[in-house]
């Protein structure tokens, strides 16, 4: 077992910035979800915009929680001298944004 040691603070700060970048991404998801419900004009019924909004805000919530867990995992990996853990968070985000974008596009064309 490798003893824990304080990593170079530059790496600590880089890890922190990555975490903050994820937080901003989730804030952008929230803002996108709110805007969809507020401004998307998809006809008389609200449900398409509402579903887009709920999916986006949901993705944001997962990203917020995932960002913190990832920051923790990175911190302990750096302290223990282990390689950084892999994450599926960017995959999840990318997939969600592509699907939401396509659905939004389809609805706009369909109208």
């Amino acid at each position, binding site marked *: 077992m490798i003893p824990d040691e*304080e990593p*170079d*603070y*530059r790496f*600590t*700060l*880089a*890890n*922190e*910035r990555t*975490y*903050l*970048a994820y*937080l*901003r991404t*989730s*804030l*952008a998801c*929230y*803002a996108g*979800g*709110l*805007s*969809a*419900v*507020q401004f998307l004009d998809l006809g008389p019924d*609200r449900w398409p915009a*509402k579903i887009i*909004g*709920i999916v986006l*805000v*949901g993705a*944001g*919530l997962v990203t*917020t*929680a995932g*960002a*913190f867990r990832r*920051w923790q995992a990175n*911190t302990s990996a750096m302290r223990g001298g282990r390689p950084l853990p892999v994450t599926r968070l960017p995959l999840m985000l990318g997939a969600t944004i592509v699907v939401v974008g396509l659905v939004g596009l389809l609805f706009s064309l369909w109208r």
Partner: protein
Amino acid sequence: MTRDPGLQPERTLLAWRRTALGLIANGVLLFASGHGTSGVRTGLGIVVVVLALGCWAAVSAVFRQAAESHPPGFLGQQRVLQASAGLVLLVGLFDLYAVITR
């Protein structure tokens, strides 16, 4: 550990500030989504903007203080990051409420 007077702490401070700006934008959107329809959403928007301004002020103050005395690993403390994740989660739940009740 050698002290590096480089730009990393500054970049980190700017990252915190951008995050606070994102919070402010969400607060303004919440406020706009509540206007004229629901007093609750308007109130939540105001709460989020106030919290975001407080976050901005706190981060700036911590940075100034730490720049004078401590090594610049100061912001990366478990509790600060826990609190920020909690705040953003809270804002997300407000937003979810706004989206559902809209």
